[in-house]
């Protein structure tokens, strides 16, 4: 709550102040206001320029901010040296339980002990990443790298630096920008997570959720007009109800009837609500459902099961990109090299996500075979909304979602 604190004291004091000060106030107010505003501007601009100067001096010979591959540093050793000199890396919106980011971040800090990772706003959205990059531009706390949804990325391509990791060829051609502005990292599949102590028989179709066993139990990860993960739940419902990637209206209609039957929950599901049984059914990315179940250890719900429904598998690749104004440009590039190394791609896979270089890893035999067997091969009927389809879907959601569930 933001307490709106205009309590009583004004009444008594202003009256007598007014009588004493009235005519003086008029003259001094503007001057005082101007002085304060000027001081404020001076302070704000002062701190941004000083930190900019500090970050520029970090790399000695190579201009890390414009390097488009590790070769610019004279190879990986040079890149590591430059990154070590920077000593830190700012990542943003990477929740530890999301796609194994907890382990991925810890692994980086272990592999490069001289670089400290500052993880900002773990539960933020892709839009928050861009907002942080813009508002903190030039400051040492600005995000260095993004893990960003496609819709927001497309609007902000001018914020990104071009870079190609050393195994660039392992990323399929349609999974990356030819010039290296962005590149897919991983996707989950939309899945149904459910508490097996409450829901006894696993759902086999999205329509099962309309049944009376699901009364007051089904939640999605936020507002689809805001969060991509929630919107993807609607797209999945569309695919399961005769819609398609270019026609998501059946998905909105599905949630409308889910609401009318009293099955839909508006509360935001979290690991805590899943553990307490408050949200016994959650539609979200497979890697998140898996992380909240037995795989989450003591923090997870031992009865939590994950089902990827038969039919079209819906996913949405997230993208990696480097901030053009990264305060730690070499560390940012080293992070990308690390992300696309087979070890980390296997970590994504272990969380239930499908990494971008999976096909190449299978070919090169660098994939962790046991993990792949457990997670299952990448689905052949994979559906992902194209940029245009996502825009059309967003328009539909803006027009129809709120009326459907409120």
């Amino acid at each position, binding site marked *: 709550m*933001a307490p709106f*604190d205009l309590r009583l004291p004004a009444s008594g004091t202003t009256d007598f102040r007014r009588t004493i000060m009235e005519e003086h106030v008029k003259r001094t107010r503007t001057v005082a206001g101007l002085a304060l505003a000027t001081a404020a501007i001076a302070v704000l601009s002062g701190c941004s320029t000083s930190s900019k100067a500090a970050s520029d001096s970090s790399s000695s010979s190579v201009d890390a901010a414009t390097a488009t591959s590790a070769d610019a540093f004279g190879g990986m050793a040079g890149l590591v040296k430059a990154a070590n000199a920077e000593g830190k890396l700012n990542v943003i919106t990477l929740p530890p339980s999301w796609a194994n980011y907890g382990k991925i971040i810890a692994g980086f800090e272990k592999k490069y002990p001289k670089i400290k990772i500052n993880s900002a706003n773990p539960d933020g959205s892709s839009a928050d990443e861009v907002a942080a990059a813009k508002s903190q531009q030039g400051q040492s706390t600005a995000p260095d790298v993004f893990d960003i949804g496609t819709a927001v990325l497309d609007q902000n391509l001018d914020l990104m630096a071009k870079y190609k990791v050393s195994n660039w060829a392992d990323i399929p051609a349609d999974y990356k920008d030819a010039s290296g502005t962005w590149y897919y990292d991983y996707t989950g599949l939309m899945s149904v997570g459910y508490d097996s102590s409450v829901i006894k028989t696993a759902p086999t179709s999205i329509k099962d959720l309309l049944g009376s066993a699901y009364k007051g139990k089904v939640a999605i990860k936020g507002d689809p007009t805001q969060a991509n993960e929630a919107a993807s739940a609607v797209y999945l419902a569309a695919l399961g109800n005769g819609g398609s990637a270019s026609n998501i209206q059946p998905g909105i209609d599905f949630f409308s009837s889910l609401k009318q039957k009293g099955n839909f929950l508006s509360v935001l599901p979290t690991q805590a609500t899943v553990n307490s049984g408050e949200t016994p059914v959650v539609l979200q990315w497979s890697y998140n459902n898996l992380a909240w179940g037995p795989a989450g250890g003591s923090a997870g719900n031992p009865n939590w099961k994950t089902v990827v429904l038969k039919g079209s598998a819906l996913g949405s690749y997230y993208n990696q990109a480097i901030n053009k104004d990264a305060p730690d440009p070499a560390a940012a590039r080293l992070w990308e090299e690390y992300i696309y190394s087979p070890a980390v791609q296997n970590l994504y896979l272990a969380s239930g996500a499908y990494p971008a270089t999976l096909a190449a890893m299978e070919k090169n035999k660098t994939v962790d075979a046991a993990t792949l067997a457990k997670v299952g091969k990448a689905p052949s009927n994979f559906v992902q909304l194209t940029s245009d389809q996502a825009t059309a879907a967003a328009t539909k959601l*803006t027009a129809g979602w709120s009326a459907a569930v409120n």
Partner: protein
Amino acid sequence: MVAIGSTRVAGEARTSSLPRRRRFGVAWLGLTPFAAYVILFLAVPAVIAVASGFFSATGSITFANLAALGDPTIVKAFQGSFLVSIVSALGGAVVGALICFAMLGTRPDGFLRTTIDSASSVLAQFGGVMLAFAFIALIGSQGILSKWILSITGVNINEIGTNGPLLYQVPGLIMPYLYFSIPLMVLTFMPAMEGLKAQWGEAAATLGATRLQFWTKIGMPVLAPAFWGSVLLLFANAFSSYATAAALIDQGGITPLSIKQQLTSETVVGVANVAGVLALGMLVVMVIVMVAYSFLQRRAARWTR
């Protein structure tokens, strides 16, 4: 509570004889830290937020965003905000005033009065996600109270009606909002109640008035401006609350959640500036409330002179 403390100090100060000397330089110097704070953390952000509404996503000046105020979803969100704020303000005011009335019968420095006073200070600030989870734990579908009622009566309070649990709907917000509105009412209304002079009651009694007549002819009319002023304060407080609602009803339905949706959306992109227009809408409501509040406060202060 700081606010209450300062009210009392101010009340004492104005009864003492004030030096009518003009020492503006020093006085203004004393005001500077507070003024700087207000300008940096209230005025500047408010101006930037509202101004953002008049720019397009590409940075050119536009009035197109104002169209959002006619959008059915946004209109519904404003209606939801008004409903929740008005009901929780009136409910909180009536219950809070009754508590104040009851407290008049206790010793001003007694244990009960000071305990309720300080408890109100704490509870009025208890909000956000913590409050949301407290209510989920109490009356959510796995809540203690829900389970208890279910075990005794066999009725699941969360399956009444067809809209799912009440707590996760816009009208359900009234419950957690009342939780901080009632203590806030006690805090703001108690000084006015204490301002009722015993002599007025004695004078009325001497002239043959009954207790009921005292309250209807003297007590309530004198307290009315303070009461409605407090109602406005509670309204403003509920109207601007965000975090509790964000945790309970994540599908929108009140204006602060619409602003969040516009600002942080990763599916509907390029609408961040519309949030500025919504902020303007909220600001207009707040300005009206504040003007009415200060007017009522002036009326209320008349009787404490």
